């Protein structure tokens, strides 16, 4: 079975868009048989990716732009592409911080990487700034073919 598109959402890259993004990703996960905890983890990873764009890509850079969210699935995985139209960044410079240092902020990239099986910046198409692919393996199916 190949990958099939489940949802495409293009919204302004603003804090008030995040709730709608979370709702779409959550419903996509649940519709593939994931449970609430699995869905929560993917939703949080996508939310962190989007808020990084809103905060750092747009607000701190003094520009505005959209977020394009594309959700796709194959038999075993759910994949979310987050495309922004901010200035391109160098993925090699994106690092998680040391969690032993208790301070506000800096958790987003750590959560994105911890909560997914794939967290990869892809080459953006012309006109886009950055494309992040977040992939997560769906829970295994039981003998009835359902996900417990």
């Amino acid at each position, binding site marked *: 079975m190949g990958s099939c598109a489940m949802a495409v959402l293009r919204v302004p890259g603003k804090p008030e868009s995040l709730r709608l993004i979370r709702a779409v990703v959550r419903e996509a996960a649940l519709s593939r048989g994931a449970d609430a905890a699995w869905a929560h983890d993917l939703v949080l990873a996508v939310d962190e990716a989007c808020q990084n764009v809103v905060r750092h890509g747009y607000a701190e850079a003094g520009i505005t732009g959209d977020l394009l969210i594309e959700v796709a699935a194959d038999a075993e995985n759910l994949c979310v592409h987050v495309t922004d139209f901010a200035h391109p960044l160098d993925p090699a410079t994106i690092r998680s911080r040391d*969690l032993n240092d208790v301070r*506000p902020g800096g958790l987003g990239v750590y*959560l994105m990487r911890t909560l997914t099986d794939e967290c990869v910046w892809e080459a953006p198409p012309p006109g886009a700034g950055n494309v992040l692919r977040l992939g997560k393996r769906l829970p295994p199916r039981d003998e009835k073919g359902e996900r417990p």
Partner: protein
Amino acid sequence: MTVSISDRGGARVVTLSGEIDLQTSPQVREAVLDSLRQGGAVVVDMGGIVYIDSSGVASLVEGFQVARRQGAAFILAAVSPAAMRVLQLARLDKVFTFQPDVETALAGEF
């Protein structure tokens, strides 16, 4: 998300409900820091929180740090499994003081 603040049992109680995200976390930060300005113990009632992201966690960490500098108690009460999952991922479950509910938090020594 809703935020309310009350004085109970010698502490200030910040009651939160709904989703804490990039849009709503500034309200949480303001409520927590305002409550800490009176210098006493602060209990954050998180029983109604169904979602928290890293910006919400950052607001709580900031409150924890201010309270520690002041020598004041800063207690998270009634943390839902979803919120605790995020705090555990951030390895903050050994940093914050937790109580199962507000009443238990208020019954403790500040």
